[in-house]
């Protein structure tokens, strides 16, 4: 599980996600030849959902597991345009507070329940119901005021204030429409099985093992712009949980599975060179994998010390070496695939150990103790880093050990304090740490609001992503402004200002840009991508 691993919610429907779409490798899957119906696709993933209900779960993997089963009211393409799906059309009121949807007719959930206005209301109400304990979805429609059923196929959703990110949020699997009958079964049942109207139907979900689906033969409501219409091409789809990197890779190379998520960077060259496989990479949008210094307590309250840490560690070399060029060193808190990415951050700071040492001297950390760490007034320059090793993907633990050794060179005593999630959450809420690490995938610049807005600071009652616990009136103002406007250029300008300010103040230590690296057998075709860099299987097919 992870509270952070996740959350790719797209915002601001009107925005074109110009930079999105990511980078595609030259070894794209060969889609030549006529698609074949039938067959089974087995795909191995590196994490698993602890709760299958996307309305409740904060994990991005829940989205991947439920997308085959759940349709949404609208869909979002990788250009950032909203298309009709279960909603035929919609109107937004002049004050931008109400959305009226005309729903598609003839749609049925796989349990036989008919899709109608009541179903939409039941789903949205379920998301915000405190009993659902939504850890993500509800947070993206906080001004939600209620849903009114106008007639069988018309529904009106009201907000207490304008909320432009609504349509993009609706397009994600976290707002997937579940059968209202199944919602009545309660959280425990939903955690293990969700029923929707999608191209696949869940056979069985087994924790720590995976999930199996079969084709929904009645499916006839694919979103506009899909590769085909009608039922899915695969008879069966299976997602297998293989957490061990070496085992997942071995399962692919020994032919046990047809495709795998997260090819370990160290093995990318090997897979590329193997004629049996294809490799595709997608740059994930949103917050990079970053380190967040606690700006409210400890040594990182001093901006000079923060800058010294960021500039005194050769992140670029470390990332290049450790990830073999598969992940790029990050410059901004958000990835280049994010709407509003500010290219200027790439030249705003660079590795300079001498300057870092000078900054630390200026900040008063002039002493040295027996182990070579800097001291000030007899106190060691210690950074406490609460690290959840069990959930560290992508060799993050190896990276952490490297950074620890690099930090020692400029006099930091970086202490990795291992914690379980149970121990981590209260510490994070209290701000009882000097450094936190996570990535935050989300397709547009609004991710910056999650990361740096005062209202995103975690409290005992609210879980937010402002790991730096950064609070700045100017930044808050720019971020609020970005919510109030739909003008693309204007928002990009505001986001650039935010990125510049947090970079100047070293409020974040950008680490690497995450690439989703998918390795698959050559017989697999037609896997498509969601805008948040996740594969979808509706159009997938396998040659015999």
């Amino acid at each position, binding site marked *: 599980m992870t509270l952070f691993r996740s959350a790719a919610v797209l915002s601001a429907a009107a925005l074109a996600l110009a930079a999105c779409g990511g980078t595609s490798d030259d070894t794209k899957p060969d889609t030549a030849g006529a698609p074949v119906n039938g067959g089974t696709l087995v795909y191995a993933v590196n994490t698993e959902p602890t709760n299958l209900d996307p309305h409740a779960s904060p994990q991005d993997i829940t989205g991947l597991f439920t997308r085959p089963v759940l349709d949404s009211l609208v869909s979002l393409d990788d250009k950032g345009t909203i298309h009709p799906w279960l909603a035929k059309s919609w109107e937004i009121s002049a004050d931008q507070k109400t959305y009226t949807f005309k729903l598609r007719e003839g749609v049925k959930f796989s349990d036989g329940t008919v899709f109608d206005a009541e179903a939409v209301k039941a789903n949205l109400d379920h998301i915000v119901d405190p009993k659902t304990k939504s850890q993500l979805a509800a947070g993206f429609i906080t001004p939600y005021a209620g849903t009114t059923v106008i007639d069988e196929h018309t529904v009106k959703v009201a907000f207490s204030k304008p909320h432009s990110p609504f349509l993009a949020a609706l397009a994600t699997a976290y707002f997937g429409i579940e059968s209202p009958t199944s919602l009545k079964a309660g959280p425990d049942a939903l955690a293990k099985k969700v029923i929707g109207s999608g191209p696949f139907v869940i056979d069985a979900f087994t924790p720590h093992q995976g999930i199996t689906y079969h084709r929904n033969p009645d499916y006839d409501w694919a979103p506009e712009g899909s590769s085909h219409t009608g039922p899915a091409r695969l008879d069966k789809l299976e997602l297998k949980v293989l957490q061990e990197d070496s085992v997942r890779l*071995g399962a692919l190379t020994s032919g046990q599975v047809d495709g795998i998520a997260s090819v370990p960077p160290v093995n990318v060259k090997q897979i590329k060179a193997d004629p049996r496989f294809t490799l595709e990479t997608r740059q994930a949008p949103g917050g990079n994998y970053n380190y967040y210094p606690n700006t409210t307590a400890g040594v990182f309250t001093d901006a000079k010390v923060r800058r010294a840490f960021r500039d005194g560690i050769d992140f670029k070399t470390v990332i290049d070496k450790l990830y073999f060029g598969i992940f790029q060193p990050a410059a901004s808190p958000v990835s280049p695939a994010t709407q509003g990415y500010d290219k200027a951050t790439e030249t705003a700071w660079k590795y300079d150990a001498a300057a870092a040492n000078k900054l630390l001297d200026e900040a008063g950390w002039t002493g040295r103790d027996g182990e070579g760490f800097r001291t000030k007034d007899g106190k060691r320059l210690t950074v406490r880093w609460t690290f959840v090793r069990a959930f560290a993907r992508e060799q993050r633990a190896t990276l952490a050990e490297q950074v620890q050794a690099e930090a020692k060179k400029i006099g930091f005593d970086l202490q990795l304090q291992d914690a379980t999630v149970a121990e981590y959450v209260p510490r994070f809420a209290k701000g009882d740490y000097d450094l936190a690490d996570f990535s935050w995938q989300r397709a547009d610049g609004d991710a910056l609001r999650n990361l740096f807005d005062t209202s995103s600071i975690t409290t005992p009652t609210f879980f937010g992503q402002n790991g730096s616990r950064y609070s700045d009136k100017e930044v808050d103002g720019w971020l609020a402004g970005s919510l109030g406007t739909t003008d693309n250029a204007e928002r990009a300008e505001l986001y650039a200002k935010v990125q510049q300010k947090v970079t100047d103040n070293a409020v974040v230590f950008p680490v690497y840009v995450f690439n989703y690296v998918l390795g698959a057998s050559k017989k697999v075709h037609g896997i498509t991508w969601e805008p948040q860099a996740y594969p979808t299987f509706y159009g997938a097919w396998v040659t015999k």
Partner: protein
Amino acid sequence: MRTVLIRLGSSLLVLWGAITVAFAVLQLTPGSTIDAILGTAPVTPEARAQIVSDLKLDRPVPEQYADFLGRIARGDFGHSYQLHDSVTGAVGRELGSSIQLSLVGVGLAFAVSIVVALLTAHRRRSVRSLSSGLELIGVSIPAFWAAILLLTIFSFKLGWFPAAGADGASSLVLPAVAVAVPLMAIFTQVLREGLELALDEPFVATARARGASDAFVRVRHALRHALLPLVTLVGWLFGMTFGSLVVVETVFSRPGMGQLILHAVEGKDLPVVLGVVVLTSVVFVTVNILQDLAYLIIDPRLRGAR
């Protein structure tokens, strides 16, 4: 008969002790008992209050203890709020795969060591030292190390066997060998020593004098005697196999008890950990009773003795 009853009584005592340890753990875990039970599972305040009253956690400790014993007696080993399932349900789902792996692994170790012991007992020094050399290597290669080597060579490099999971017989081969390697060493050693003792017995000489072939003597006469000491290894075997299961299932990403308990420990899912503890001691006690009964059947002289 009296012996059996005494033995049974003391086994039940051991079981009661294990259950009491489990209860004590729940009470002694820092923080409130309800937090210990819920672990990291997100639960609404209403559900939480319901659990407190269901498990009588608001009652005095002796009453909680009586209730705890009562629930276990009824076969209720608790509920995991992280797995959204009862402990027996979760264990039941994983148990089959683990039992399958253990049986095949132990069986393999047994078969190989019988053959090796038969071939090497009382043979030339060079043959024997080869065999004891192999035994030593078996002892000094931990199961996880054997598992990684097998996985790398036979799955990643040669592609003969699948790397992960539990689909079909071919996915069982490598994990079973990994489980068998450390067992084989001890089995062979015990069997060989037993065989050598038996081969020195007068009845063997008698058999040989009657013209029985060496192979016949070894298999028909000596082997039976040599198998007896293996029965004493049952308790050890049980613990050893359990330990191997956990690491081997991890390396091969194979579902089973090992994965269940590891995830439970990582997630602080105390009901599952304690449920497995109690269930394991149930199995252990049962195995021990069977072992005692087996002794009585094999060697009637023990019937009068305590």
